[in-house]
């Protein structure tokens, strides 16, 4: 299994060359932050013909998480907070988790929910359960494991969000005009193709489940172009994604979580797009255990992250981009995460 086969420059450039035959302007949305990063890393945005425009979507779970979560967590005493590294530098109203750690809060970066479980063996621990459907099964596992072992030290702050409802809300906005979607390859590994089937019927556009290597992305774009006249959901990433997804993972998610409405920072409330821990696992629900509330911080009125997340504008069109809003001093959510659209543009596309 040589993954480098999907990075062969001559094949990629040949394929991009073929795309020049298509002359009409099209706009495709890459939903997922990891796609935005990959496109930036390989320089694909500028390599593609000018009439093929890629815009970034809301697929950055850090960007869409309310910043007041940070404030609530920092206030907790005598509990160890475990988090993926992604969240460490997201500004709360006064400081981020990294700064709080420097001042003595016990905040630890973990690579996996299983690491958080290990830490909880001898101390009260919250795991910040951030992510989309790719990450949620592992978070569910940690809760089931804690329940099985009656590990009352462990709890999860459930911040998981769901992609298909977000796409529904986004595409419903008449101001957003996209001709197709580059769908997230790893989310789709879990959920399969079915949850996207409403898109061609409701909105008349297609979507291609795409991998993250440069060859995958260019093939995804090509497939979208070839199917503009008969939009449907297709799977370029078939070596990983099965049409039915991963049923064991889906069953575990249903076992632990129930669907709820959720606030997406920069977008607003999206119905049925969040996950709440079921009452049978209430002991491991950090929201209940520590009575944590969240609300939206008032965003800078000049910040156009909402429009960036919805794919209506590109980051450079925001007046704050690269001037007062930079990765070192992020103002809006799209810049706070290293894979947010604005951060990716700042790093790769200028």
């Amino acid at each position, binding site marked *: 299994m040589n993954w480098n086969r999907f990075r062969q420059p001559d094949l990629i450039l040949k394929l991009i*060359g073929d795309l020049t*035959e298509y002359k009409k302007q099209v706009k495709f949305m890459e939903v997922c932050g990891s796609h935005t990063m990959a496109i930036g890393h390989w320089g694909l945005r500028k390599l593609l013909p000018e009439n093929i425009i890629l815009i970034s979507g809301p697929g950055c779970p850090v960007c869409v998480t309310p910043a007041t979560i940070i404030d609530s967590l920092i206030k907790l005493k005598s509990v160890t907070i475990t988090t993926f590294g992604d969240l460490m530098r997201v500004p709360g109203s006064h400081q981020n988790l990294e700064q709080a750690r420097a001042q003595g809060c016990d905040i630890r970066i973990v690579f*996996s929910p299983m690491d958080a479980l290990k830490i909880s063996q001898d101390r009260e621990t919250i795991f910040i359960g951030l992510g989309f459907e790719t990450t949620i099964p592992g978070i569910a596992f940690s809760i089931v494991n804690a329940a099985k072992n009656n590990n009352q030290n462990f709890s999860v702050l459930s911040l998981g969000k769901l992609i298909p409802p977000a796409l529904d809300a986004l595409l419903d906005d008449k101001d957003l005009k996209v001709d197709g979607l580059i769908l*997230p390859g790893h989310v789709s590994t879990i959920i399969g193709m079915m949850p996207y089937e409403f898109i061609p019927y409701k909105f008349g556009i297609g979507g291609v489940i795409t991998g993250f290597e440069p060859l995958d992305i260019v093939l995804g774009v090509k497939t979208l172009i070839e199917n503009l006249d008969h939009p449907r959901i297709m799977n370029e990433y078939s070596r990983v994604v099965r049409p039915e997804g991963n049923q064991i993972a889906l069953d575990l998610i249903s076992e632990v979580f129930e669907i709820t409405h959720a606030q997406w920072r920069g977008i607003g409330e999206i119905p049925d797009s969040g996950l709440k821990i079921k009452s049978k696992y209430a002991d491991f629900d950090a929201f209940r255990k520590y009575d944590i509330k969240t609300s939206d911080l008032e965003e800078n009125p000049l910040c156009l992250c909402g429009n960036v997340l919805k794919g209506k504008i590109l980051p450079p069109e925001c007046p704050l981009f690269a001037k007062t809003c930079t990765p070192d001093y992020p103002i809006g959510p799209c810049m706070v995460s290293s894979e947010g659209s604005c951060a990716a543009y700042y790093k790769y596309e200028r």
Partner: protein
Amino acid sequence: MCLAIPAIVVKKTHNDMGIVCLGGVEKEISLMFTPEVRIGDWVMLHTDFAIQIITEEDARETLAIFQEIPPADQREEKI
């Protein structure tokens, strides 16, 4: 939004756990979402969980699409 990398399964241990090899180093991970995996299979690894088995056949099929694309000036059909 989801970094995942391919890794080869070298051992299955207890409780749905296993050992994978990635880039020459081994790591213990959970195989609970891919219980049917066999030693020697490749899996997609995300935060210590194998989220799916990678099929070489499909990998080759994806690549075959590229290998078969003739140069633009020799194509009969236009997009």
